[in-house]
């Protein structure tokens, strides 16, 4: 009856949301640059990729569903110790080790999600903080299992796919971590653009309206939380396998706080925010700690305050804002 004024059909419009932007392609191509430009820094690059994966897992619940967590390192640590213990007790095959650690972290995440889904905001910050501290002290206390503050010794990985040994230069480590990060990123990207991703954004945007459209928000949150916990565990397992050790630091409050800082720096709820934040944070730490090892957090503090005050949606949010304005002109 009436001609559509919009140039795109609704379905084409929603499909277009899923399309790859040239900048995304450029970003992933750029992740290959360390092999050529910074071959001495491949171990650092590998740690950045792992941290980026960890930040991506937090983005899923915090950035998309609006579920705050100050104890996300618990799952990273559970994954790290699971992978470490599996290797220590005789099974050093990396890929099955990843699957094992991911499953354990996911199972624990699923159990915890029944508590998490019922709370919001400040209460949730305190609950996750408490659970994180609990996990840390449990790992600290269980010296017989985890090695406590001495760290877990005796982790030894077999070559990846039976072919690529973990070398001193981090060549295998970075290739391996980057490949896993990219695959998980593809999954996360699909999730964000799925009906479930839409539901998570619905929970973030209006918690009250969800039941009024017949949505079971609690079930959605449990699912998202389980997935995020599994991803965090996967990141932890990667760190264990690429460094062949597990330290208590992997399950510490510091790690929970750091990943939150990275996500806020980069921009939460943008998929790339955690990745950009991890790169900035890790490179800054590497550079600043070279200048004054004890005080490098000072600069992170300055950066955090500056970004939050000037760019409330993080660095990526600020950039996309300027980009949109520049294109609009």
């Amino acid at each position, binding site marked *: 009856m009436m001609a559509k004024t919009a140039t795109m059909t609704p379905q084409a419009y*929603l499909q277009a949301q899923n399309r790859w932007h040239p900048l995304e392609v450029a970003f992933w191509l750029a992740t290959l640059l360390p092999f050529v430009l910074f071959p001495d820094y491949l171990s650092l690059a590998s740690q950045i990729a792992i941290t980026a994966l960890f930040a991506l897992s937090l983005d899923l619940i915090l950035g998309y569903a609006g579920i705050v967590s100050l104890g996300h390192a618990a799952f990273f640590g559970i994954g790290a110790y699971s992978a470490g213990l599996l290797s220590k007790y005789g099974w050093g095959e990396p890929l099955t080790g990843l699957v094992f650690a991911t499953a354990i972290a996911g199972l624990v995440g699923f159990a915890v999600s029944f508590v998490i889904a019922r709370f919001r905001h400040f209460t949730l910050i305190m609950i996750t903080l408490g659970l994180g501290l609990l996990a840390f002290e449990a790992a600290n206390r269980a010296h017989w299992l985890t090695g406590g503050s001495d760290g877990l010794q005796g982790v030894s990985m077999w070559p990846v796919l039976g072919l690529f040994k973990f070398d001193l230069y981090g060549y295998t480590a970075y290739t391996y971590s980057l490949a896993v990060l990219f695959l998980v990123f593809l999954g996360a990207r699909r999730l964000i*653009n*799925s009906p479930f991703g839409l539901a998570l954004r619905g929970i973030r945007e209006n918690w009250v309206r969800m*039941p009024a459209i017949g949505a079971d928000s609690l079930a959605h949150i449990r699912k998202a939380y389980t997935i995020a916990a599994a991803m965090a565990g996967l990141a932890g397992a990667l760190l264990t396998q690429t460094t062949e050790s597990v330290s208590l630091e992997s399950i510490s409050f510091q790690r929970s706080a750091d990943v939150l800082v990275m996500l806020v720096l980069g921009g939460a709820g943008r998929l790339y925010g955690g990745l950009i934040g991890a790169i900035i944070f890790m490179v800054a730490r590497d550079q600043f700690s070279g200048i004054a090892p004890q005080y490098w957090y000072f600069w992170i503090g300055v950066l955090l305050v500056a970004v939050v005050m000037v760019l409330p949606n993080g660095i990526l949010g600020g950039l996309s804002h300027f980009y949109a304005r520049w294109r609009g002109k």
Partner: protein
Amino acid sequence: MNVPVQSAKGTIALSTRGLSKAFGSLPVARDIAINLPVGARYALIGPNGAGKTTLINLMTGMLAPNAGQIFLAGDDITALGPQERVRRGLARTFQINTLFAGLNALEAVTLAVAERRGQAGRFWRGVGAHGETIDEAYDILRKLKLGDSCYQVTRELPYGRQRLLEIALALATRPKVLLLDEPAAGVPPEESGEVFEAVAGLSDDLTLLFIEHDMHVVFRFASHIIVLVGGVIFTEGTPAEISADPGVREVYLGKRKHG
């Protein structure tokens, strides 16, 4: 427990029995008995603080009653949660916009349709691959004349369109009974007619109960009016009966000088 459902023509879509609720010592609903026949166009009126929104909150499960029961198509739904009632066909809109500010209208209604179709848990397929769901959402938007602005993010939509989006979200759940809490609240008088034209254009099978302060609108669109005062049903009847009722004039029509 089932309430006897009357013959096909006068079938009751939604009813309440002895519904009561108090906030502390303040009773906000007392012994409310309402019967909404299928396809009804009922208006719920009453002075501010009469408990109109509370009644909708009780019916939709957003508040738990202290006593009484609620029946949807004869089934007792008193113990069910809000989302379960929505799935059984009881939807509502909100007096104050309760929308997904950061989503655009198409995304919001697509989400609501996906929830109804049981697709909202799917994380392995893109939204764009759900053609039927999107088409259904777009149809709803077009019927409410939101087709042209469906790519605009909700917080940037003009207020009147946000009110229509409230209704679109409720319709996406395919309700049998729809409770509208002041659908044109906050809309300038010259535009509020547009909102009610949209309401009047809804399917005849849909049972409607709406809260509204503007008596012109009430008399024009309602087939039956319930007057609520102090949490109690003061009286009810056809628009003619209500406008002739001296008691109603005194408690409500006479001093309609709020806001």
